[in-house]
């Protein structure tokens, strides 16, 4: 970390993180106020992962996301309006209201789906990486998945194939310590998901997922490696979700201690970054607050826009089941 990222990059990362945080805070409120239906899995606390990785990607690079996907979509360049509209189930949403929170996505900027199926993404990302190699581009495919997802067979098959074919692919495990309400030590006998990398013949890297600069640098190395044709990496980011598994306060299940939550919140990734930016005179606390304010008003505007958008028409239900030649 001799040099570290440029100020421009730092500000860009900061912006992405703030955008995620605010998008999610407002989404949580909408849910609590009964404005949006379905299951909402919020990303608050994990912002450093999406932002640190996505800062290296262009629209041409692909990602696959998860049920906890809003953060990835925001960081990859998803717009608030189309995202909130999707949560509202409106036709102006990214998925025309067909997908909702668990599927919010935008193919145009390389997001090959959020996924309601745990570990649905990795095999698809491997397919995209295969395609990148086949088409001889320098695109990279990044798949995000949780500690819980790392126990699905699909992870294993995807990782093995990616390593075998040396695909331009990055496996980002967001280890937030829980799969739903089951702690990591109750779902696997290992502490580090990265330990699995050796079993596929790829490097496994562990990084502090609350430190966006650490994520940024580790992801950069792995992505460059992928672009150079040297194959995939498993990057494990140790992180934490500040809200419950679903929604904000969740279902009142007693599965983690308030102390643990408090401790992790002291390492709020946005606060950590902002302290650093202030210290390094890159962004003052006031300027940071202004960013929050600007993003917040963008969110409020987008919510109003979404709320005013029409629902899809019933007669269009079958339109997108099959492709019928434009």
């Amino acid at each position, binding site marked *: 970390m001799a040099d570290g990222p440029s100020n421009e990059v730092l500000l860009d990362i900061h912006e992405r993180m703030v955008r995620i945080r605010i998008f999610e805070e407002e989404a949580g409120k909408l849910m609590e106020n009964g404005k949006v*239906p*379905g*299951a909402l899995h919020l990303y608050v606390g994990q912002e450093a992962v999406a932002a640190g990785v996505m800062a290296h990607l262009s629209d041409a690079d692909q990602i696959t996301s998860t049920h906890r996907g809003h953060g990835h979509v925001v960081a990859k360049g998803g717009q608030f309006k189309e995202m909130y509209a999707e949560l509202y*189930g*409106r*036709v102006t949403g990214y*998925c025309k*209201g*067909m*997908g*909702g929170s*668990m*599927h919010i996505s935008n193919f145009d900027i390389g997001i090959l789906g959020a*996924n*309601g*199926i*745990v*570990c*649905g993404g990795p095999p698809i990302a491997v397919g995209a990486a295969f395609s990148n190699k086949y088409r001889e581009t320098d695109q990279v495919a990044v798949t995000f998945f949780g500690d*819980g*997802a790392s*126990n*699905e*067979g*699909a992870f294993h098959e995807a990782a093995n194939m990616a390593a075998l074919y040396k695909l331009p692919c990055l496996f980002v495990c967001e280890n937030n310590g829980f*799969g*739903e*309400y*089951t702690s990591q030590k*109750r*779902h*696997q006998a290992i502490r580090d998901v990265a330990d699995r990398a050796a079993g596929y013949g790829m490097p496994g890297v562990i990084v502090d997922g609350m430190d966006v600069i650490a994520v940024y640098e580790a992801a950069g190395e792995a992505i460059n490696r992928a672009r150079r044709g040297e194959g995939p990496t498993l990057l494990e980011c140790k992180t934490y979700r500040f809200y419950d598994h*679903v929604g904000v306060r969740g*279902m009142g*299940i*007693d*599965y983690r201690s308030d102390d643990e939550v408090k401790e992790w919140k002291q390492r709020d990734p946005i606060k950590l970054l902002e302290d650093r930016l202030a210290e390094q005179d890159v962004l003052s606390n006031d300027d940071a607050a202004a960013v929050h304010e600007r993003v917040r008003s963008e969110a409020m505007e987008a919510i109003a826009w979404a709320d005013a958008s029409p*629902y*899809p028409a*019933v007669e269009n*239900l*079958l339109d997108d*089941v099959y492709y019928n030649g434009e």
Partner: protein
Amino acid sequence: MAAATDQATREIPYVKAITEGVQQSLHEFPEAFLAGEDVAVAGSVFGIYKGLLAEFGEKRIVDTPISEAGIVGLGVGAAATGLRPILDIMFMDFLGECMDEVANQMAKMRFMFGGKAKLPVTVLMMGGAGMSMAAQHSQSLEAWLCHLPGLKVMMPTTPYDAKGSIIAAVREENPIFVILNKLSLGITGPVPEEPYAIPIGEAIIRREGSDISVVAIGRMVHEALTAAEELAKDGISLEVIDPRTVQPFDTATVIASVQKTHHAMIVHEAVRFAGIGGEIAAQIQEEAFDYLDAPVARLGAPFAPVPYSPPLEKAYMPDAKRIAATARETLGR
């Protein structure tokens, strides 16, 4: 066909009836255990196992990794060696993750190895739409399971049947699926406190009628009853049949009803094409051809994944209104 359900004064919701069915089964069989994702500490994301960990402990209420194939395999191996597993697969949409274990191991193990294995394994899963859970958390895939020799499949629609199906399933010596319905979790009904089993493979007539036999699958029973109520006002009399078990299917009860009403329709939440409505319609015309005054009608979801947007999801799912319309159409009045 079974008689109407026992009366019991106590009314509890479907969600609690499930808990009680599992709880009493665990008491009945020391070799029974419950395993699945978030069944223990969380008591299930549907709240259906609340309190079981405290009562039975970690040995018998087992949180698993997110590994559906592993869970079903665990159940198959444990059942083959003397235990009586109760497995939870959360959403039935996750069947795809473990379909090999279900279809190629669980369903075939007894047959394939010459009748040696006995597999008393129960699988619980939540099906159905209506909660804006979108395409991957709302499906009705009972047709897949019904097509597999070696399995049995129940779809309880009332709190009484939820408890009675689970107890019946856990007592059963063959692999059996109990497909629960997430939109029904809150509906209440009379449920006796003591353990009881509803008979596997027996339909029940939920409402007697004379004009048309409505075979309603799963939650559609309630919609059909509402439609029956509505049409009764116009003098149209629906007989509502709840098969309760879809594999094996109680053809006799359905045929007897059709012989009386001369009209039949089937309604299920699953998409129509290759749903079990086709099987039932085919059976009805096979066995009651000469009694039918009109084609057997089928109502199911349109041929699309389940949409998220509330108005679309509502339009997607068959309901009382469409049941009534189809009944009218079939009856020509």
